Protein backbone atom coordinates (compact mmCIF):
# COMPACT_ATOMS: atom_id res chain seq x y z
CA UNK A 1 0.00 0.00 0.00
CA UNK A 2 0.97 3.59 -0.58
CA UNK A 3 1.41 5.88 2.39
CA UNK A 4 1.11 9.65 2.13
CA UNK A 5 2.98 11.72 4.71
CA UNK A 6 2.25 15.45 4.99
CA UNK A 7 5.19 17.50 6.27
CA UNK A 8 5.31 21.14 7.34
CA UNK A 9 8.14 23.65 7.43
CA UNK A 10 8.11 25.34 10.82
CA UNK A 11 10.31 27.48 13.06
CA UNK A 12 12.88 25.14 14.60
CA UNK A 13 11.86 23.90 18.04
CA UNK A 14 14.95 25.42 19.65
CA UNK A 15 14.18 28.96 18.51
CA UNK A 16 12.61 31.36 20.98
CA UNK A 17 10.17 33.25 18.77
CA UNK A 18 9.61 37.01 18.97
CA UNK A 19 6.53 38.99 18.18
CA UNK A 20 6.96 41.80 15.61
CA UNK A 21 6.98 45.24 17.17
CA UNK A 22 3.69 46.18 15.47
CA UNK A 23 2.01 43.00 16.82
CA UNK A 24 1.17 41.91 13.26
CA UNK A 25 2.85 38.53 13.46
CA UNK A 26 5.87 36.56 14.54
CA UNK A 27 9.37 37.53 13.39
CA UNK A 28 10.36 34.91 10.82
CA UNK A 29 13.17 36.59 8.91
CA UNK A 30 16.54 35.00 9.56
CA UNK A 31 15.00 32.38 11.81
CA UNK A 32 16.08 28.75 11.50
CA UNK A 33 13.36 26.59 9.95
CA UNK A 34 13.03 22.80 10.18
CA UNK A 35 10.65 19.97 9.48
CA UNK A 36 7.93 19.85 12.15
CA UNK A 37 9.20 17.29 14.70
CA UNK A 38 5.92 15.34 14.76
CA UNK A 39 6.02 15.07 10.96
CA UNK A 40 9.53 13.66 11.21
CA UNK A 41 8.10 10.91 13.41
CA UNK A 42 5.37 10.32 10.80
CA UNK A 43 7.97 10.00 8.02
CA UNK A 44 9.98 7.57 10.12
CA UNK A 45 6.93 5.39 10.77
CA UNK A 46 6.00 5.26 7.09
CA UNK A 47 9.56 4.40 6.05
CA UNK A 48 9.73 1.63 8.66
CA UNK A 49 6.49 0.17 7.30
CA UNK A 50 7.96 0.13 3.82
CA UNK A 51 11.18 -1.43 5.10
CA UNK A 52 9.09 -4.10 6.84
CA UNK A 53 7.31 -4.87 3.59
CA UNK A 54 3.97 -3.51 4.83
CA UNK A 55 3.99 -0.53 2.49
CA UNK A 56 5.09 -0.21 -1.11
CA UNK A 57 5.71 3.51 -1.47
CA UNK A 58 6.07 6.53 0.82
CA UNK A 59 5.11 9.89 -0.66
CA UNK A 60 5.92 13.06 1.26
CA UNK A 61 3.74 16.08 0.56
CA UNK A 62 4.07 19.65 1.76
CA UNK A 63 1.81 22.65 1.27
CA UNK A 64 3.45 26.07 1.26
CA UNK A 65 6.02 28.25 -0.43
CA UNK A 66 8.97 27.14 -2.55
CA UNK A 67 11.15 26.87 0.59
CA UNK A 68 9.08 23.86 1.65
CA UNK A 69 11.12 21.91 -0.93
CA UNK A 70 13.86 21.79 1.71
CA UNK A 71 11.46 20.11 4.13
CA UNK A 72 10.51 17.60 1.45
CA UNK A 73 14.20 16.89 0.80
CA UNK A 74 14.57 16.13 4.51
CA UNK A 75 11.75 13.59 4.23
CA UNK A 76 13.33 12.11 1.11
CA UNK A 77 16.68 11.81 2.87
CA UNK A 78 14.98 9.91 5.68
CA UNK A 79 13.68 7.44 3.12
CA UNK A 80 10.50 8.74 1.46
CA UNK A 81 10.40 7.61 -2.19
CA UNK A 82 9.11 10.77 -3.81
CA UNK A 83 7.67 14.13 -2.91
CA UNK A 84 4.95 16.55 -3.91
CA UNK A 85 4.97 20.27 -3.21
CA UNK A 86 1.60 21.94 -3.31
CA UNK A 87 2.79 25.45 -3.90
CA UNK A 88 0.90 28.39 -2.50
CA UNK A 89 2.27 31.79 -1.55
CA UNK A 90 -0.65 32.78 0.63
CA UNK A 91 -1.24 31.92 4.28
CA UNK A 92 -2.58 28.37 4.44
CA UNK A 93 -4.82 27.60 7.39
CA UNK A 94 -5.36 23.99 8.51
CA UNK A 95 -8.74 23.65 6.77
CA UNK A 96 -7.18 24.74 3.45
CA UNK A 97 -4.28 22.33 3.97
CA UNK A 98 -6.72 19.50 4.69
CA UNK A 99 -8.55 20.28 1.44
CA UNK A 100 -5.29 20.36 -0.52
CA UNK A 101 -4.27 17.04 1.01
CA UNK A 102 -7.65 15.56 0.14
CA UNK A 103 -7.06 16.54 -3.48
CA UNK A 104 -3.60 14.94 -3.42
CA UNK A 105 -5.02 11.81 -1.76
CA UNK A 106 -7.68 11.54 -4.44
CA UNK A 107 -4.97 11.62 -7.10
CA UNK A 108 -2.53 9.29 -5.35
CA UNK A 109 -5.00 6.88 -3.74
CA UNK A 110 -2.94 6.01 -0.63
CA UNK A 111 -4.38 3.49 1.84
CA UNK A 112 -3.01 5.43 4.76
CA UNK A 113 -1.98 8.96 5.61
CA UNK A 114 0.43 9.33 8.53
CA UNK A 115 0.82 12.91 9.78
CA UNK A 116 2.21 14.61 12.85
CA UNK A 117 -0.41 15.24 15.52
CA UNK A 118 0.29 18.96 15.56
CA UNK A 119 2.64 21.53 14.14
CA UNK A 120 4.73 23.29 16.75
CA UNK A 121 4.10 26.74 15.26
CA UNK A 122 0.31 27.15 15.33
CA UNK A 123 -0.19 24.23 17.78
CA UNK A 124 -3.52 23.59 16.06
CA UNK A 125 -3.70 19.77 16.12
CA UNK A 126 -6.42 19.81 13.45
CA UNK A 127 -5.24 18.89 9.96
CA UNK A 128 -5.24 15.09 10.26
CA UNK A 129 -8.70 14.94 11.78
CA UNK A 130 -10.07 17.33 9.14
CA UNK A 131 -8.47 15.36 6.31
CA UNK A 132 -10.04 12.16 7.65
CA UNK A 133 -13.44 13.88 7.82
CA UNK A 134 -13.19 15.28 4.29
CA UNK A 135 -12.25 11.87 2.89
CA UNK A 136 -14.81 10.03 5.05
CA UNK A 137 -11.96 7.90 6.44
CA UNK A 138 -11.33 6.63 9.92
CA UNK A 139 -8.84 8.43 12.13
CA UNK A 140 -6.39 7.23 14.76
CA UNK A 141 -5.05 10.28 16.53
CA UNK A 142 -2.10 10.60 18.96
CA UNK A 143 -0.65 7.21 17.98
CA UNK A 144 2.17 5.73 20.04
CA UNK A 145 2.05 2.30 18.35
CA UNK A 146 0.86 1.23 14.93
CA UNK A 147 0.33 -2.34 13.69
CA UNK A 148 -0.81 -3.06 10.16
CA UNK A 149 -3.28 -5.99 9.85
CA UNK A 150 -2.99 -6.87 6.20
CA UNK A 151 -4.87 -4.53 3.92
CA UNK A 152 -8.10 -4.24 5.86
CA UNK A 153 -7.23 -2.48 9.07
CA UNK A 154 -4.73 -1.24 11.59
CA UNK A 155 -4.37 -1.53 15.33
CA UNK A 156 -3.32 1.68 16.98
CA UNK A 157 -2.39 2.51 20.55
CA UNK A 158 -3.36 6.09 21.30
CA UNK A 159 -1.99 8.34 24.04
CA UNK A 160 -5.08 9.77 25.75
CA UNK A 161 -5.55 11.86 28.90
CA UNK A 162 -5.99 8.95 31.28
CA UNK A 163 -3.38 6.64 29.78
CA UNK A 164 -3.58 4.52 26.64
CA UNK A 165 -6.42 3.49 24.38
CA UNK A 166 -6.24 0.70 21.82
CA UNK A 167 -8.34 1.10 18.69
CA UNK A 168 -8.98 -1.05 15.64
CA UNK A 169 -9.65 1.15 12.62
CA UNK A 170 -10.53 0.30 9.06
CA UNK A 171 -8.37 1.30 6.16
CA UNK A 172 -8.11 3.72 4.51
CA UNK A 173 -7.25 5.79 7.56
CA UNK A 174 -5.46 8.88 8.77
CA UNK A 175 -3.02 8.26 11.64
CA UNK A 176 -1.57 11.16 13.63
CA UNK A 177 1.78 10.54 15.26
CA UNK A 178 2.49 11.30 18.90
CA UNK A 179 5.95 11.71 20.42
CA UNK A 180 6.57 8.13 21.41
CA UNK A 181 5.61 6.40 18.15
CA UNK A 182 9.29 6.05 17.28
CA UNK A 183 12.63 7.83 17.35
CA UNK A 184 13.31 9.27 13.91
CA UNK A 185 16.61 8.40 12.28
CA UNK A 186 19.23 10.93 11.29
CA UNK A 187 19.61 11.10 7.54
CA UNK A 188 23.07 9.93 6.49
CA UNK A 189 25.16 11.98 4.10
CA UNK A 190 24.81 9.45 1.25
CA UNK A 191 21.06 9.49 1.76
CA UNK A 192 21.01 13.28 1.75
CA UNK A 193 22.86 13.20 -1.59
CA UNK A 194 20.51 10.53 -2.93
CA UNK A 195 17.50 12.57 -1.86
CA UNK A 196 18.53 15.36 -4.23
CA UNK A 197 17.83 13.04 -7.15
CA UNK A 198 14.51 11.67 -5.98
CA UNK A 199 11.43 12.97 -7.84
CA UNK A 200 9.80 16.12 -6.44
CA UNK A 201 6.70 17.25 -8.32
CA UNK A 202 5.19 20.68 -7.94
CA UNK A 203 1.49 21.44 -8.30
CA UNK A 204 -0.37 24.61 -7.38
CA UNK A 205 -3.45 24.95 -5.23
CA UNK A 206 -5.26 26.32 -8.28
CA UNK A 207 -4.38 23.23 -10.32
CA UNK A 208 -5.92 21.13 -7.56
CA UNK A 209 -9.06 23.26 -7.73
CA UNK A 210 -8.99 24.10 -4.04
CA UNK A 211 -10.11 27.43 -2.59
CA UNK A 212 -7.52 28.22 0.07
CA UNK A 213 -8.92 31.57 1.21
CA UNK A 214 -8.28 31.92 4.98
CA UNK A 215 -11.40 31.65 7.12
CA UNK A 216 -9.95 33.20 10.25
CA UNK A 217 -8.17 36.54 10.75
CA UNK A 218 -5.21 36.72 13.10
CA UNK A 219 -5.49 40.32 14.18
CA UNK A 220 -3.05 40.73 17.05
CA UNK A 221 0.01 38.87 18.29
CA UNK A 222 1.40 39.43 21.76
CA UNK A 223 3.78 37.82 24.19
CA UNK A 224 2.08 36.57 27.33
CA UNK A 225 2.79 38.55 30.49
CA UNK A 226 6.20 37.47 31.75
CA UNK A 227 6.47 35.91 35.18
CA UNK A 228 8.26 38.06 37.67
CA UNK A 229 11.57 36.54 38.62
CA UNK A 230 11.51 34.79 41.94
CA UNK A 231 14.11 34.25 44.62
CA UNK A 232 16.53 31.50 45.48
CA UNK A 233 16.12 30.02 48.91
CA UNK A 234 19.09 28.83 50.93
CA UNK A 235 17.67 25.56 52.20
CA UNK A 236 14.58 23.43 52.67
CA UNK A 237 13.62 25.16 55.94
CA UNK A 238 13.53 28.54 54.25
CA UNK A 239 11.52 27.06 51.37
CA UNK A 240 8.93 25.64 53.77
CA UNK A 241 8.68 28.97 55.65
CA UNK A 242 8.20 30.89 52.40
CA UNK A 243 5.60 28.47 51.08
CA UNK A 244 3.57 28.32 54.25
CA UNK A 245 3.93 31.82 55.66
CA UNK A 246 4.67 34.13 52.72
CA UNK A 247 2.98 32.57 49.69
CA UNK A 248 0.39 30.72 51.79
CA UNK A 249 0.51 28.08 49.08
CA UNK A 250 0.18 25.21 51.53
Amino acid at each position, binding site marked *: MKILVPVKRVVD*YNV*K*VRVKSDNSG*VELSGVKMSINPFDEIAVEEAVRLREAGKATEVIAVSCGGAASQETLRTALAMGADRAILVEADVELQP*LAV*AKLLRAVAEREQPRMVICGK*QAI*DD*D*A*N*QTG*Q*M*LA*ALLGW*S*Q*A*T*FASRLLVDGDAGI*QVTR*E*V*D*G*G*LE*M*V*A*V*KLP*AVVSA*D*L*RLNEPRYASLPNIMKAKKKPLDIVTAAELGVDVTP*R*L*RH*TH*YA*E*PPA*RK*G*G*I*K*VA*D*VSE*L*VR*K*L*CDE*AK*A*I
Partner: protein
Amino acid sequence: MRTLVIAEHDKAQLASATLGAITAASRFGGEVDVLVAGDACDAVVAHASTVQFVTRVLKAEASYYGDGTAENIAVLVQRLASGGAYRAVLAGASSFGKGLTPRVAALLDVAPLSEVIAIEAPGRYRRPIYAGNVIVTVESDQPVDVLTVRGTAFDAAADGVGSAAVERIEAADDQGLARVTGREISKSERPELGSAAIVVSGGRGLGSGENYKRLLEPLADTLGAALGASRAAVDAGFVPNDYQVGQTGKIVAPALYIAVGISGAIQHLAGMKDSKVIVAINKDPEAPIFKVADYGLVGDLFEAVPALTGQLAAR
Protein backbone atom coordinates in the same frame (compact mmCIF):
# COMPACT_ATOMS: atom_id res chain seq x y z
CA MET B 1 -27.39 32.82 20.22
CA ARG B 2 -27.46 29.20 21.31
CA THR B 3 -24.29 27.18 21.87
CA LEU B 4 -23.67 23.45 22.01
CA VAL B 5 -21.19 21.75 24.33
CA ILE B 6 -20.15 18.21 23.46
CA ALA B 7 -19.94 16.24 26.69
CA GLU B 8 -17.01 14.04 27.55
CA HIS B 9 -17.91 11.48 30.19
CA ASP B 10 -17.14 8.11 31.74
CA LYS B 11 -20.80 6.92 31.79
CA ALA B 12 -21.10 8.23 35.35
CA GLN B 13 -20.44 11.95 35.18
CA LEU B 14 -19.16 14.78 33.01
CA ALA B 15 -15.40 15.24 32.70
CA SER B 16 -13.97 18.38 34.31
CA ALA B 17 -12.93 19.54 30.81
CA THR B 18 -16.61 19.65 29.87
CA LEU B 19 -17.49 21.76 32.95
CA GLY B 20 -14.90 24.31 31.78
CA ALA B 21 -16.35 24.25 28.28
CA ILE B 22 -19.83 24.94 29.70
CA THR B 23 -18.49 28.05 31.46
CA ALA B 24 -16.87 29.12 28.17
CA ALA B 25 -20.17 28.54 26.33
CA SER B 26 -21.96 30.79 28.81
CA ARG B 27 -19.71 33.69 27.68
CA PHE B 28 -21.59 33.74 24.38
CA GLY B 29 -24.54 35.03 26.37
CA GLY B 30 -27.20 32.66 25.09
CA GLU B 31 -28.67 29.31 25.95
CA VAL B 32 -26.31 26.39 26.43
CA ASP B 33 -27.19 22.91 25.20
CA VAL B 34 -25.10 19.92 26.25
CA LEU B 35 -24.94 16.86 24.02
CA VAL B 36 -24.47 13.59 25.87
CA ALA B 37 -23.83 10.78 23.41
CA GLY B 38 -23.27 7.41 25.01
CA ASP B 39 -24.43 3.93 25.77
CA ALA B 40 -26.51 3.67 28.96
CA CYS B 41 -25.58 7.17 30.03
CA ASP B 42 -28.55 8.21 32.19
CA ALA B 43 -26.29 9.07 35.12
CA VAL B 44 -24.32 11.50 32.96
CA VAL B 45 -27.51 13.05 31.61
CA ALA B 46 -28.76 13.51 35.17
CA HIS B 47 -25.44 15.09 36.16
CA ALA B 48 -25.40 17.40 33.13
CA SER B 49 -28.90 18.64 33.87
CA THR B 50 -27.75 19.97 37.25
CA VAL B 51 -24.86 22.02 35.89
CA GLN B 52 -24.86 25.82 36.04
CA PHE B 53 -25.61 27.61 32.71
CA VAL B 54 -27.05 24.50 31.05
CA THR B 55 -30.53 25.04 29.59
CA ARG B 56 -31.04 21.75 27.79
CA VAL B 57 -29.43 18.33 27.74
CA LEU B 58 -29.61 16.40 24.47
CA LYS B 59 -29.31 12.68 25.01
CA ALA B 60 -28.33 10.41 22.13
CA GLU B 61 -28.05 6.77 23.07
CA ALA B 62 -26.62 3.97 20.97
CA SER B 63 -24.36 1.04 21.73
CA TYR B 64 -21.73 2.43 19.34
CA TYR B 65 -21.48 5.69 21.27
CA GLY B 66 -20.07 3.71 24.18
CA ASP B 67 -16.57 4.01 22.71
CA GLY B 68 -16.83 7.77 22.22
CA THR B 69 -15.12 7.55 18.84
CA ALA B 70 -14.76 10.78 16.88
CA GLU B 71 -16.07 9.21 13.67
CA ASN B 72 -19.49 8.45 15.14
CA ILE B 73 -19.97 11.52 17.31
CA ALA B 74 -18.84 13.95 14.58
CA VAL B 75 -21.67 13.03 12.20
CA LEU B 76 -24.18 13.45 15.01
CA VAL B 77 -22.86 16.91 15.87
CA GLN B 78 -22.80 17.82 12.19
CA ARG B 79 -26.52 17.06 11.97
CA LEU B 80 -27.28 19.15 15.08
CA ALA B 81 -25.12 22.14 14.12
CA SER B 82 -25.97 22.40 10.42
CA GLY B 83 -28.45 25.02 9.36
CA GLY B 84 -27.60 27.71 11.86
CA ALA B 85 -28.95 26.14 15.04
CA TYR B 86 -25.82 27.09 16.99
CA ARG B 87 -23.43 30.05 17.04
CA ALA B 88 -20.70 27.86 18.50
CA VAL B 89 -19.88 24.25 19.27
CA LEU B 90 -17.47 23.74 22.15
CA ALA B 91 -15.57 20.94 23.84
CA GLY B 92 -12.79 20.80 26.40
CA ALA B 93 -9.21 20.74 25.07
CA SER B 94 -8.73 17.12 26.19
CA SER B 95 -7.65 14.25 23.98
CA PHE B 96 -11.37 13.59 23.41
CA GLY B 97 -12.11 17.19 22.37
CA LYS B 98 -8.96 17.59 20.29
CA GLY B 99 -9.65 14.41 18.36
CA LEU B 100 -13.28 15.23 17.73
CA THR B 101 -13.75 18.96 17.11
CA PRO B 102 -11.61 19.34 13.96
CA ARG B 103 -13.57 16.45 12.45
CA VAL B 104 -16.82 18.25 13.29
CA ALA B 105 -15.53 21.54 11.85
CA ALA B 106 -14.44 19.96 8.58
CA LEU B 107 -17.86 18.35 8.15
CA LEU B 108 -19.41 21.80 8.69
CA ASP B 109 -16.82 23.40 6.36
CA VAL B 110 -15.58 25.86 8.99
CA ALA B 111 -12.14 26.48 10.48
CA PRO B 112 -11.88 25.21 14.07
CA LEU B 113 -10.10 27.01 16.90
CA SER B 114 -7.92 24.99 19.28
CA GLU B 115 -7.19 25.59 22.95
CA VAL B 116 -9.02 28.89 23.27
CA ILE B 117 -8.07 30.73 26.47
CA ALA B 118 -10.35 33.77 26.17
CA ILE B 119 -13.64 34.57 24.49
CA GLU B 120 -13.58 38.35 24.06
CA ALA B 121 -16.85 38.33 22.15
CA PRO B 122 -18.63 35.82 19.94
CA GLY B 123 -16.28 35.60 16.95
CA ARG B 124 -13.24 37.03 18.77
CA TYR B 125 -10.99 34.69 20.69
CA ARG B 126 -7.48 34.40 22.06
CA ARG B 127 -5.34 31.28 21.86
CA PRO B 128 -1.71 30.40 22.51
CA ILE B 129 0.66 29.44 19.69
CA TYR B 130 4.39 28.56 19.63
CA ALA B 131 4.18 26.57 22.86
CA GLY B 132 2.44 29.42 24.64
CA ASN B 133 5.18 31.95 23.84
CA VAL B 134 2.76 33.97 21.73
CA ILE B 135 -0.92 34.72 22.27
CA VAL B 136 -2.86 35.46 19.10
CA THR B 137 -6.23 37.14 18.77
CA VAL B 138 -8.35 35.35 16.18
CA GLU B 139 -11.44 36.80 14.54
CA SER B 140 -14.06 34.81 12.74
CA ASP B 141 -17.24 35.63 10.92
CA GLN B 142 -18.12 32.06 10.26
CA PRO B 143 -21.75 31.04 10.83
CA VAL B 144 -20.63 28.63 13.52
CA ASP B 145 -17.33 28.51 15.40
CA VAL B 146 -16.06 25.17 16.60
CA LEU B 147 -13.65 25.42 19.53
CA THR B 148 -11.81 23.53 22.17
CA VAL B 149 -11.20 25.49 25.34
CA ARG B 150 -8.46 25.13 27.91
CA GLY B 151 -9.61 24.01 31.33
CA THR B 152 -7.01 26.21 33.00
CA ALA B 153 -8.60 29.33 31.49
CA PHE B 154 -12.24 28.68 32.37
CA ASP B 155 -13.45 27.69 35.84
CA ALA B 156 -15.50 24.52 36.00
CA ALA B 157 -19.22 25.28 35.99
CA ALA B 158 -20.84 24.32 39.29
CA ASP B 159 -22.88 21.14 39.36
CA GLY B 160 -25.82 20.19 41.55
CA VAL B 161 -27.39 23.62 41.11
CA GLY B 162 -29.79 23.43 38.14
CA SER B 163 -32.45 21.29 36.57
CA ALA B 164 -32.21 21.63 32.80
CA ALA B 165 -34.69 19.96 30.50
CA VAL B 166 -33.63 16.65 28.97
CA GLU B 167 -34.48 15.92 25.37
CA ARG B 168 -33.94 12.57 23.77
CA ILE B 169 -32.60 12.83 20.23
CA GLU B 170 -32.07 10.25 17.56
CA ALA B 171 -28.62 8.73 17.16
CA ALA B 172 -26.81 9.07 13.83
CA ASP B 173 -25.92 5.93 11.90
CA ASP B 174 -22.95 3.85 13.00
CA GLN B 175 -20.05 4.75 10.71
CA GLY B 176 -18.41 1.39 11.42
CA LEU B 177 -14.93 2.88 11.01
CA ALA B 178 -13.27 2.44 14.38
CA ARG B 179 -13.76 0.60 17.62
CA VAL B 180 -11.97 0.65 20.94
CA THR B 181 -10.42 -2.72 21.75
CA GLY B 182 -8.76 -1.94 25.06
CA ARG B 183 -7.77 0.72 27.53
CA GLU B 184 -4.90 1.04 29.97
CA ILE B 185 -6.05 3.81 32.20
CA SER B 186 -3.87 4.81 35.14
CA LYS B 187 -5.74 4.29 38.38
CA SER B 188 -4.91 6.64 41.17
CA GLU B 189 -6.36 7.90 44.42
CA ARG B 190 -4.64 11.19 43.81
CA PRO B 191 -6.35 14.27 42.34
CA GLU B 192 -6.58 14.55 38.55
CA LEU B 193 -3.47 16.20 37.12
CA GLY B 194 -5.40 18.69 34.97
CA SER B 195 -7.44 20.11 37.84
CA ALA B 196 -5.35 19.53 41.00
CA ALA B 197 -4.60 22.43 43.34
CA ILE B 198 -1.05 21.19 43.89
CA VAL B 199 1.14 19.33 41.40
CA VAL B 200 4.45 17.62 42.18
CA SER B 201 6.33 17.00 38.96
CA GLY B 202 9.57 15.16 38.28
CA GLY B 203 12.13 15.18 35.51
CA ARG B 204 15.20 13.44 34.25
CA GLY B 205 17.15 14.53 37.34
CA LEU B 206 15.40 11.81 39.34
CA GLY B 207 17.39 9.23 37.43
CA SER B 208 14.92 6.34 37.51
CA GLY B 209 11.30 5.36 37.92
CA GLU B 210 12.15 3.91 41.32
CA ASN B 211 13.57 7.19 42.52
CA TYR B 212 10.55 9.02 41.14
CA LYS B 213 8.25 6.77 43.17
CA ARG B 214 10.39 6.74 46.30
CA LEU B 215 10.90 10.51 46.45
CA LEU B 216 7.86 12.13 44.87
CA GLU B 217 4.99 9.91 45.98
CA PRO B 218 5.47 10.64 49.71
CA LEU B 219 5.70 14.37 48.94
CA ALA B 220 2.53 14.24 46.83
CA ASP B 221 0.74 12.23 49.52
CA THR B 222 1.73 14.74 52.20
CA LEU B 223 0.36 17.60 50.11
CA GLY B 224 -2.64 15.82 48.57
CA ALA B 225 -1.06 16.66 45.23
CA ALA B 226 -1.30 15.21 41.75
CA LEU B 227 1.84 13.81 40.14
CA GLY B 228 3.26 15.06 36.85
CA ALA B 229 6.44 14.74 34.82
CA SER B 230 8.52 16.28 32.09
CA ARG B 231 8.73 14.70 28.66
CA ALA B 232 12.25 13.49 29.45
CA ALA B 233 10.97 11.50 32.43
CA VAL B 234 8.18 9.96 30.35
CA ASP B 235 10.47 9.14 27.44
CA ALA B 236 12.91 7.51 29.85
CA GLY B 237 10.08 5.30 31.11
CA PHE B 238 10.02 6.62 34.70
CA VAL B 239 6.24 7.17 34.51
CA PRO B 240 3.40 6.61 31.98
CA ASN B 241 2.54 9.08 29.21
CA ASP B 242 -0.47 10.54 31.01
CA TYR B 243 1.88 12.19 33.53
CA GLN B 244 3.40 14.47 30.91
CA VAL B 245 3.05 18.21 31.42
CA GLY B 246 3.91 20.46 28.50
CA GLN B 247 3.14 21.78 25.04
CA THR B 248 1.94 18.41 23.81
CA GLY B 249 1.03 16.88 27.14
CA LYS B 250 -1.24 18.29 29.82
CA ILE B 251 -1.61 21.99 30.48
CA VAL B 252 -1.86 22.69 34.19
CA ALA B 253 -2.23 25.83 36.29
CA PRO B 254 -2.40 24.73 39.93
CA ALA B 255 -2.03 26.99 42.96
CA LEU B 256 1.35 25.34 43.58
CA TYR B 257 3.64 23.53 41.14
CA ILE B 258 6.75 21.83 42.50
CA ALA B 259 9.25 20.94 39.76
CA VAL B 260 11.86 18.43 40.90
CA GLY B 261 14.86 17.68 38.71
CA ILE B 262 13.25 19.40 35.73
CA SER B 263 15.51 21.70 33.70
CA GLY B 264 12.63 23.63 32.14
CA ALA B 265 12.64 23.30 28.35
CA ILE B 266 10.23 25.78 26.73
CA GLN B 267 7.99 22.86 25.80
CA HIS B 268 7.64 22.00 29.50
CA LEU B 269 7.20 25.61 30.60
CA ALA B 270 4.33 25.86 28.09
CA GLY B 271 2.41 23.39 30.21
CA MET B 272 2.87 24.92 33.67
CA LYS B 273 3.96 28.55 33.59
CA ASP B 274 0.47 29.79 34.45
CA SER B 275 0.70 28.09 37.86
CA LYS B 276 0.21 30.52 40.73
CA VAL B 277 3.33 29.60 42.71
CA ILE B 278 6.20 27.65 41.18
CA VAL B 279 8.91 25.90 43.18
CA ALA B 280 11.98 24.46 41.46
CA ILE B 281 14.48 22.08 42.97
CA ASN B 282 17.46 21.46 40.73
CA LYS B 283 21.20 21.05 41.16
CA ASP B 284 22.01 23.23 38.13
CA PRO B 285 21.75 26.93 39.10
CA GLU B 286 21.56 27.85 35.41
CA ALA B 287 18.53 25.63 34.70
CA PRO B 288 15.87 27.65 32.84
CA ILE B 289 13.20 26.46 35.29
CA PHE B 290 14.60 29.00 37.80
CA LYS B 291 13.58 31.85 35.48
CA VAL B 292 9.92 31.07 36.08
CA ALA B 293 10.18 29.79 39.65
CA ASP B 294 9.00 31.93 42.54
CA TYR B 295 11.16 29.90 44.90
CA GLY B 296 14.24 28.13 43.63
CA LEU B 297 16.32 25.71 45.63
CA VAL B 298 19.69 24.87 44.12
CA GLY B 299 20.77 21.57 45.53
CA ASP B 300 20.69 17.83 45.55
CA LEU B 301 17.09 16.70 45.13
CA PHE B 302 17.89 13.35 46.77
CA GLU B 303 18.46 15.22 50.04
CA ALA B 304 16.09 18.13 49.56
CA VAL B 305 12.92 16.22 48.66
CA PRO B 306 12.87 13.88 51.70
CA ALA B 307 13.68 16.87 53.93
CA LEU B 308 10.85 18.86 52.36
CA THR B 309 8.41 15.98 52.80
CA GLY B 310 9.49 15.56 56.42
CA GLN B 311 9.19 19.25 57.32
CA LEU B 312 5.82 19.63 55.61
CA ALA B 313 4.47 16.54 57.32
CA ALA B 314 5.64 17.91 60.67
CA ARG B 315 3.80 21.22 60.27
